[in-house]
């Protein structure tokens, strides 16, 4: 099921590129929905309204990031009032000795290095599960799927206690180590292996005398570039968005992630009465940018990953 869905999705994706693809076929097809102008207009209005709902908060955030404090509280929220984006940026980057930059670097470190390691382990495991038949394989796969249901609190609290026993709490390791083991990545890697690595190829390599490790690193890994990129991207996004784990295992500000820092800033007003709303909003806008760039640049990977992950 997953394989056919994936191919269909990919097929639709590539077919949409040539101008004489399905768009034309659709037009020549006697499609009553397309013929009735009213119906089509109704559909477009619906989509435009939904898009407006999706984009409105982002639009507002962009405008709010250009205002100074007075403008934020007193001007019309839907339109610009003075242009103070540069001052706001400067404030964000210099506040508390530039801790925001530190948080950004931390987020990149945890998400980048953690996901890279996690992806490699997931590819190894997915390949092992998909292309070898060993005793206990079913148990490993059942553990992978079963762990989707385990609530974060059940894992995070004891993990915190264990990490504090061995002195890992409040160090980058407390974030990096949990990223290495990601059952969902393993699941994806297994599905991708099944779709891209034929048994015959492995047989041929073995007959030529290649060792198993060599086969994996010089053949399998190369053929799995697309699958690996998808696994990496989804793991990266997951770690970048994480909140409960960093909140639990990181205490000192210098190890925090962007999310944790922004959460703390947004609570400041209540705690100490200092209003840092414009800092929070400008920081929030900044924290979206890397995610947006990455997702747009790699959209064909993550979309197939999202749908594949869902349609088992």
């Amino acid at each position, binding site marked *: 099921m997953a394989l*056919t*869905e994936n191919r*269909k*999705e990919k097929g*639709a994706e590539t*077919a949409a590129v040539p101008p004489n693809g399905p*768009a034309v076929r659709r037009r020549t097809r006697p499609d009553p929905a*397309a013929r009735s102008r009213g119906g089509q207009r109704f*559909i477009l209005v*619906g*989509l435009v309204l*939904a898009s407006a709902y*999706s*984009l409105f*908060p*982002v639009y507002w955030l962009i405008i*709010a990031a250009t205002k100074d404090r007075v403008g934020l509280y007193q001007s*019309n*929220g*839907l339109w610009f009032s003075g242009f103070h984006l540069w001052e706001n940026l400067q404030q964000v980057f210099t506040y508390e000795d530039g801790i925001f930059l530190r948080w950004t670097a931390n987020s990149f470190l945890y998400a980048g290095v953690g996901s890279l390691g996690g992806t490699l*382990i997931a590819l*190894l495991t997915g*390949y*092992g*599960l998909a*292309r*070898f038949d060993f*005793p206990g394989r079913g148990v*490993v796969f059942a*553990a992978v799927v079963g*762990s989707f249901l*385990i*609530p*974060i*609190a*059940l*894992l995070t*609290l*004891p993990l915190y*206690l264990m990490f504090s026993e061995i002195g890992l709490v409040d160090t980058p390791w407390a974030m990096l180590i949990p990223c290495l*083991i990601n*059952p969902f990545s*393993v699941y994806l890697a297994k599905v991708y292996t099944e779709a891209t690595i034929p048994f015959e190829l492995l047989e041929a390599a073995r007959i030529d005398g290649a060792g*198993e490790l060599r086969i994996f690193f010089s053949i399998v890994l190369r053929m799995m570039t697309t699958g690996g990129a998808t696994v990496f991207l989804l793991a990266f996004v997951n770690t970048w*968005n994480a*909140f*409960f784990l960093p909140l639990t295992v990181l205490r000192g500000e210098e190890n925090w992630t962007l*999310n944790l820092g*922004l*959460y703390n800033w*947004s*609570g400041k007003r209540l705690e100490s009465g200092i209003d840092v709303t414009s800092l929070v*909003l400008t920081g*929030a806008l900044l924290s*979206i940018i890397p*995610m947006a760039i990455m997702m747009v640049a790699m*959209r064909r990977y993550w*979309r197939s990953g*999202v749908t594949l992950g869902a*349609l088992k």
Partner: protein
Amino acid sequence: MIRSLRWKGAAFTVPFQLGFVFLYLLPIGYAVYQSLYLQKQSGLGLGGATREFVGLENYQQGLTDSAFMTSILRVVLFACVQIPFMLLISLVLALLLDAVTSKVAGRFRILLLVPYMIPGVVAAIVWVNLYSPEVGPLTPLGELFGFDWNFFAPSMVWPAIGNLLTWHGIGYNMVIIYAALQGVPRELFEAARLDGASEMRIALSIKIPFVRGALVLTALLSIIQMLQIFNEPALFRNVTPQTVSDSFTPIMIIYNQAFNAGNYHYAAALSVLLALILGVASFVFYRLTSREVD
């Protein structure tokens, strides 16, 4: 398969298995173990704390803890409203996308996915500020149309969080349902049209039944997420602690028991209970819906 090859294959999964034991099995075992003990003060608190084996006492306390049970009920009730609402919108949007050319669909799909690209904490920060009567545009906008709404009032806080979750989730769910729709054999539509079926009829009688599996799956994922909701209420609590208490959702209670009350043993028992409830809920939901499909 040759015997030596089997073991080489198993070797590929060893790093994961070791990690899984260390990061999943061991913590769960540790949580269960911790949940059977209790920190007790001896001698008027002067003699230091001792750990005492209490068996299932923590679980008994958890099951009769009205704050914990209320928080679960609160989240479940909320899920019963928000999830169907969100999935209905996602389904309608997927059907709309399916009715336009693939070029137009591609453009709208990206726009509708913008919220999904935004981290949950940032999404909550943005909406909390949109709702804020001081900086947000929604309060003056409401006044313009004669509404006097306060999003942080007790009666409005769930709708406010519900809107945030819906905004964040429709794109993702829409993509999954839309992908399933692409799998419907197109000949079915032709046949139905020749028989004189309207587009609406085709959507109701062919498309929706066909994507039922995707709907069940998105619902299941949403239920699992909802029972563990934490980020959004935590952010709301930052601005309106009088409405969003620190025992608003089950995970908030667990977090507070562990880190504010310092009661790890009880927190461990509560998280085991939550895991059991989650497992049962998913199983029951899956059973109910898959039986209907058969």
